[in-house]
């Protein structure tokens, strides 16, 4: 039953929350951003090693802990609340998830254990500037046979943690079929460039492939990527449910301690009603997330995952702006954390697919198309 948090999930949340507070507070994240680093190595070592989050959803026989989506949501919500930069989403969710959904048993056996223990970092390269969708139906990146090997040529954008990855999982077309290919870092013809993205807590790259040697994955890539899209929507929504809660808590705290006209500003309905609305919206997103977790593996999985993402991403973007506004002039300063959430929310609303794409997925699931 995913609707009520289990004892284990509550304890996981508590462990991740206190880890974030001690080891990755926003003050430390700011220093890291200023130094141009994508994430903190020590933090990642603990997240992937001691806390085992990079292997959370990977099956036990592939070196993970075989956790559910509901478990993943609990951990991601706490990391999202702290805006913790890490390759977890890119590597431990997107790449691991895509491999788990694929039929290539050899690649799974080889890579999943290393992704699960965090020793290998992967990045998923699907998006292309020419396609309105995160996962194009027909990518322009092409794969051609070259003797015993395969070579890729094309351009990918919005690749999460592309610069930090040891291996890229690239969608390309070969002989009319959409496929997934592995490209190692350092392969000749591969160039990866960090994008000057709006959200400094996420490292995003553009990728150029010029006749790069690649290893194709066996099986139906379209089905695997469709499965993955559900997980991607769900996981990002989980992070955002946490971040939304952080915006709410930060602003409630401020509204209770900032005085104007003789009383805390949180006593005024102009302020408290906005916070009541934010709490209500967080409650709805959190409930939709739990229902989507419960739908993992069922026929409702695509619709509930797209639905929670559609609801949460836009709600968070509005809430981050409201949070900044309710902090008044203070909220607009560089020193205050409100802008970090606002930028994370703006980018998160279009990362891994835009709002229209999510609603189209819901519509498809409901038979409206």
């Amino acid at each position, binding site marked *: *039953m995913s*609707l*009520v948090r289990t004892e284990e999930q509550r304890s996981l949340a508590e462990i991740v929350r206190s880890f974030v507070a001690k080891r990755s507070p926003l003050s430390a994240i700011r220093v890291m951003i200023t130094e141009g680093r994508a994430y903190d190595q020590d933090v990642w070592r603990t997240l992937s090693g001691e806390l085992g989050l990079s292997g959370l959803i990977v099956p036990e026989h592939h070196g993970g802990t075989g956790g559910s989506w509901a478990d993943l949501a609990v951990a991601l919500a706490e990391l999202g609340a702290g805006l913790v930069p890490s390759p977890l989403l890119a590597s431990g969710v997107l790449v691991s998830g895509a491999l788990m959904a694929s039929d290539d048993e050899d690649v799974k056996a080889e890579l999943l254990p290393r992704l699960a223990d965090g020793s290998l970092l992967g990045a998923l390269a699907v998006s292309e500037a020419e396609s309105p969708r995160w996962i194009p139906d027909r990518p322009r990146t092409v794969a051609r046979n070259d003797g015993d090997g395969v070579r890729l040529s094309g351009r990918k954008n919005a690749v999460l943690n592309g610069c930090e990855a040891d291996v890229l999982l690239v969608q390309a077309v070969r002989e009319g079929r959409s496929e997934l290919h592995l490209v190692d870092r350092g392969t000749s013809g591969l160039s990866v460039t960090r994008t000057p993205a709006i959200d400094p807590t996420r490292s995003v790259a553009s990728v150029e492939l010029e006749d790069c040697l690649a290893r194709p994955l066996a099986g139906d890539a379209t089905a695997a990527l469709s499965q993955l899209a559900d997980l991607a929507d769900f996981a990002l929504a989980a992070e955002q449910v946490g971040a939304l809660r952080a915006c709410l808590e930060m602003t*409630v705290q401020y*509204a*209770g*301690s*900032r*005085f*104007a*006209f*003789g*009383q*805390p500003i*949180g*006593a*005024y*309905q102009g302020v*408290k*009603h906005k*916070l*009541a*609305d934010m*709490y*209500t919206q967080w*409650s*709805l*997103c*959190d*409930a*939709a997330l*739990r*229902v989507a977790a*419960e739908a993992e593996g069922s026929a409702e999985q695509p619709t*509930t995952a797209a*639905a*929670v993402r*559609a*609801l949460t991403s836009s709600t968070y973007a509005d809430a981050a702006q409201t949070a900044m506004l309710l902090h008044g002039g203070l909220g607009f300063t560089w020193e205050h954390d409100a802008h970090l959430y606002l930028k994370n929310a703006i980018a998160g609303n279009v990362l891994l697919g835009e709002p*229209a794409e999510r*609603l*189209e997925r*819901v*519509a498809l699931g*409901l038979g*409206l*198309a």
Partner: protein
Amino acid sequence: MTTSTSDAGFRTRVRTFLQDRAKPAGSPTGSSTEDLPRADASPLQEAKAFQRAVWDAGLAGITWPREYGGQGLSTDELVAYNQVAADFELPTIPLSIGMGMVGPTLVELGTDEQKARYLPPLLRGDEVWCQMFSEPDAGSDVAALRTRALRTADGWVVSGQKTWTSNAQWSDYGVVLARTDPSAPKHRGITMFVVDMHAPGVTVRPLVVATGLAPFNEVFFDGVALPADAVVGEVDRGWQAAVAMLRHERVSIGTRVQTRANALGFDSLTELVRSRRWPPDPVTRRQLADAHVREAAVLAYGQVLQAEVKAGIEAGARGSVAKLAGAELRLWQARLAQELLGPDIALGAPGTAAAALGIIAAPGVATAGGTNEIQRNIIAERILGLPKDGGIAARDTPFDQIRTTR
């Protein structure tokens, strides 16, 4: 979700009974204006007959004590009953206040005599109840009520006016809040009474609302005599009784599964679009998807709340969150219906009457049971812990006595 064998057996029993006694949800007349409650006798007779059948089937008062005619079962069975019932159109409105609010409150606070006298006829569908809290000058601030109850040698005499009273037009009994001690602070001088609605001095008038229908009433008390044993709970402790009743109301709303007949719901709006332009254009398609997303989230919240209450996690003031979310959803649906079908609705095109009525009724649905502003105050103060609004500091307060941030 897993269901145990006994649960499945109970559901089968409920379904078999309802298939025999009720119309399926969404039947042609189900969402038409003709089926909305009106002050005529037929819905009342229908409701009484249906409740009698529920009683005969051993399904009346699922969670109520057996000694007063109930079944003595848990909320699991109540929830199961309501989930099965969502597939049917049940004629329960005339008896809903008695079943959902008054009955559970009497179970909690009534004397043995009150329970023995009132509960069995309520469960048999013989007696209809209403609840009288709101007054013309006491809505959101209901503790400001002015209806007076004066003590007499052998009881009380009540005078005043109540409003927004559902079902009063066909009620045999009602519970009323009246002020018994005007010199006490406003929450401490109120008492709850049982009133015979057929007693001399009680006048019920229909209250016509924006839709043109009269789903509520005004009730006037002109020196109505009550016996001493009409008090529910204790004298001057009526506010506590009212809070208990409102808690039962929220549970009743929370465990009630929405019927699939909401004229502004995703299913209904999709059907209206389907009959006009199909397949829908991309904008319409996304709007309908959005309608599903928002509706599903409100339902999800209700499910989470229910599951948590079952697991022993108190709902507390989160009933107000469910109420506000449901109200905002309804208002959003009303706006969407106008975007999708505005001209048809405005010009009364065939098939749009229920949606038109739903749009006009949406503000009323949102306000019933407490305005959105009151729900927001409750959420902000009781859940988020924000301070009550004390009003701005008076102009003549010395500056060193005005509280500031530092």
